[in-house]
């Protein structure tokens, strides 16, 4: 019972850690050249010297821009408790007109803002404006940005405008009048290098000794992790490194790593209570998904037929085709399928049922494919056309198709050959 209990506690502890960005990024806070230090320096200087400032934080999604910023603000609030008012104008999207009050007009709002800036300037308080998704604020006329930055220049106030965006060219989006009022400071959030990963992993995965968990469990747990992290010449070590590298090769942002670790940690076996290499391996396999491939593998044979036939149309350089032309051009193959599916021994049996119904079933399978988004309509025009007349296109590559066909056991050999184009010569042998 004891072990189970500890293991669960440890699991919850680790998961809480992984979901708490401020903890993750606190590991970066002690190095002098990190973004954390730079940002902190800028903001604190404007607090102390009472000047205006503006800065852009740029980096790919999930690289921890907001997390670092919040860390900075939290720390600064501790240092200068009564000097900062945090005015977070974080509105996710295009609601820039409605930042402050919904009822008042834009003019009233800017008046109010000016007044407030002045007040705060007199009281020696610094206002921090955080504009998340900065690129969206740059849409349209940029009146908001302009009036905000203009107000900062004209009034003796203390304010810091921090824009956050994942577009690296966010400052190029600004109009001239806005750009001239914006000090061109940018902080780039770049992917970390290997050693940092290592430190981050240690920072996250090692349990603290001064917790409610029993110390011998903690030491054992940490030792297990250290083995896979540190000790050389151990197979586990090399493999673990490999796993981490593949993971960071796919997506090198911090959040992607966190997601990976989260999967690994949630795979932890509560019976033994320790993280094992297997956990990381399974987590990696869940990260490396190929949705399209899975989707093709899930198709029924009829649907696979349609996909392969569409592929054949593309090989034949037919640039635009629809359901009807697929059915017509590949009549022979659907006929073969028809015999195959319905298990008719001879052609004569099948001639009794009408072809029309078979086409109906194919059309339904075709709709399935559309819903699965393996194929799509080539254009948005002709919405009132029925499905069989609208031109379609494949959304999967022939490589994916081939890979899926060869890797599923149930797919008939004839399809693979058909895809490879080996059966072209037999085209005439319909009735044999």
């Amino acid at each position, binding site marked *: 019972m004891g072990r189970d209990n500890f293991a*669960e506690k440890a*699991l*919850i502890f680790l*998961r*809480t850690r992984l*979901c*708490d960005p401020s903890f993750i990024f606190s590991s970066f806070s002690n190095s002098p050249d990190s973004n954390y230090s730079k940002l902190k320096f800028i903001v604190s200087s404007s607090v102390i010297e009472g000047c205006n400032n503006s800065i852009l934080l740029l980096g790919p*999604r*999930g690289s921890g821009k907001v997390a670092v910023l919040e860390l900075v603000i939290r720390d600064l609030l501790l240092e200068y408790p009564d000097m900062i008012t945090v005015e977070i104008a*974080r509105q*996710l*999207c*295009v*609601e820039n007109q409605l930042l402050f009050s919904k009822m008042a007009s834009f003019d009233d709002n800017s008046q109010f803002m000016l007044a407030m800036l002045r007040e705060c300037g007199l009281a020696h308080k610094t206002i921090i404006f955080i504009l998340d998704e900065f690129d969206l604020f740059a849409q349209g006329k940029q009146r908001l940005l302009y009036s905000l930055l203009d107000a900062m220049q004209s009034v003796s106030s203390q304010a810091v405008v921090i824009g956050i965006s994942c577009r690296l060219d966010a400052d190029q989006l600004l109009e001239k009048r806005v750009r001239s009022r914006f000090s061109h400071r940018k902080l780039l959030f770049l992917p970390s290098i290997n050693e940092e990963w290592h430190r981050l992993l240690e920072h996250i995965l090692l349990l603290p000794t001064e917790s409610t968990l029993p110390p011998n469990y903690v030491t054992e747990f940490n030792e297990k992790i250290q083995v896979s992290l540190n000790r050389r010449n151990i197979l586990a070590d090399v493999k673990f490194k490999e796993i981490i590298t593949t993971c960071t090769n796919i997506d090198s942002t911090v*959040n*992607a790593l*966190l*997601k990976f670790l*989260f*999967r690994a940690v*949630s*795979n932890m076996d509560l019976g033994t209570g320790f993280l094992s290499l297997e956990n990381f391996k399974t987590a990696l396999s*869940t990260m490396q*998904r190929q*949705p*399209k491939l*899975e*989707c093709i593998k*899930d*198709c*029924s*044979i009829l649907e696979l037929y349609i996909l392969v036939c569409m592929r054949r149309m593309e090989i034949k350089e037919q640039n*635009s*085709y*629809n359901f*009807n*032309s697929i059915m*017509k051009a590949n009549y022979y193959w659907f006929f073969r399928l028809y015999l*195959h*599916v*319905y*298990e008719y021994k001879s052609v004569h049996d099948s001639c009794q*049922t009408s072809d*029309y*119904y078979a086409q*109906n*079933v194919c059309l*339904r*399978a075709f*709709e*399935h494919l559309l*819903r*699965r*988004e393996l194929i799509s309509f080539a254009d948005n025009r002709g919405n*009132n*056309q*029925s499905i069989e*007349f609208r*031109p379609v296109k494949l959304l999967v590559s022939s490589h994916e198709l081939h890979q899926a066909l060869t890797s599923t056991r*149930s797919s008939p050999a004839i399809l693979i050959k058909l895809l490879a184009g080996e059966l072209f010569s037999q085209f005439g042998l319909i009735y044999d």
Partner: protein
Amino acid sequence: MRPLTIRHFPLNLNFEAAATLDDPSFNYQNLARNHRLLIMGKEETPQITRRATRHSSANVSKNETETKASDQPLPPTLNDLFLGEKEKPISLDNVVSSFPGRRVQIIEVMRILGPVNCPMVPLFVYGDSSTGKTSITNQIFRHLNRPFVYSSCLTCYSPRILFESVLNQLLFHRKNAANGYSSAKRCEKPSDFVNLLREALVSVTSSLQGNSDKSSSKKLCRRACGNMIYLIFDNLELVREWDKSSTILPFLFNLHDILKMPEVGLIFISNTSPDTYYTSMGYLEPATVYFPDYTEDDLRQILLLKQENKKLYSSFLDVVLKSFFRITRRVDELSTSFSQLFRKYCEPLNDLGVVPNEEMKRRLFSTLQPHIAPAMNEIFKVSSQTSTEGGATKHKSSSKKSSLEVSDQLDLHMSTSAKYLLISAFLASRNPATLDASLFDSTGGSDNRKRKRKPSEKSLDLKESAEQELMMKGPGTFPLERLLAIFQCITSVAEGSFEEEEQENDGIGVQTGDDSLMSDVLLQLSSLCNANFIVKGGSCPLEGSTRYRSTVSEDMVLKVARSVKFPLSKYLYRR
């Protein structure tokens, strides 16, 4: 009112989990009005529990006119967010065994949800329809007995309704006549939603914490339910078609980061894989769990689940499953067609409880065999009578192709003039306009002369490409005047030969040259348009008038022509 049906048939549990129909043509408005949120909470006293059970298990949504004052449901409480309280909680083994072939996925989801009181990253569950995504998620929450808020983007068809539905559930607000069916909070903007949601969540989680403190004394929760609350968004793929999808989607995916509340777990359920969601905005990818389609063995187990005579049904499946499996792998489609086929299979049997031996199997197979192929052809069709045991497993995509179903009962419902109108629309769509004069010329001589000309090599090529073009373009469009002209022509032909029929019908519009009847024809035309047999195309840029297009298939028109004894093939231009 259309009854909502249960989507994942093997478990006939109480999800009214509103709107599990994937049919896009389903009336959203109606659904939204009927929309009943997943309220199945435990009530305090047994007496009330019974009432609540009846109320919530009714398939038809809350209908206030029927609910008398005495039958007023109690105002929802915190307990309504639990699924596992009122009904018997089920064990994990039970969940796994009720979903054959889903063991791996269930465990994976359970792992990501984690033990009590632990935060999670957003979860993204995806897989084709009828692979058990929603039902498994529901059952897992029933098993875990944790509070959750379920909202489907199918019933909540706009951001505002989605936001308000989530908030209503969190604020324990139920729409009724007293509050004029209004929501607890009016909320249209994502930013308002975030603020309101945070407020609501804070109050809920704090009361949850209070509960878990007192749980030992009040016995409110049999097991510790923790202070996590989960928001489930179902049918997320529909959001992509919303007007503001480019902002709503990243917003939903980033909701976890924006809220910054570790007590909130987000679960997205979607039909399509995560790679179909890429937008220009970008977002952090949630943790994904894939529900693959069932394999043949899984399907066999699922289909066997509800059968009384498993031996008999399994011998039936031996015969049919393999070939049907090649056409579709979806449980809902298979079960619909099997339920009828199985009845055919059982027809020769007197006693349904019989255990079939080899000889009997052979006999049964031979009687069934002629029915298999037609059943396969109709695998996606909906028969008019509903099956008894399969419940009202309404078929998706049935209403899409209305012409297929209607064709059989067509004779009953259309007047003669409508039939002629349909035929003339078909002719106008298929025949080139330039040939109208020669085809409908009363002498018809020029037509014959043309046919006799020997086709040259070049004209054959032309013909081929024209054929190609026709296949790509589908039926052509035509202006109203042309339709009416053809209509007049063919009715004048018919008038001569079928006078007696016309008298029978008392001249329903089949009179030419009479201007007073033209309005009737136009009325018929508009009703045909409404029935989607003729669609209005874009207007011609030169003439400015609306153009029409016929959507009916050739087979159907042939049937119609036969019913009015009209020689259609004579007028149809074949290339």
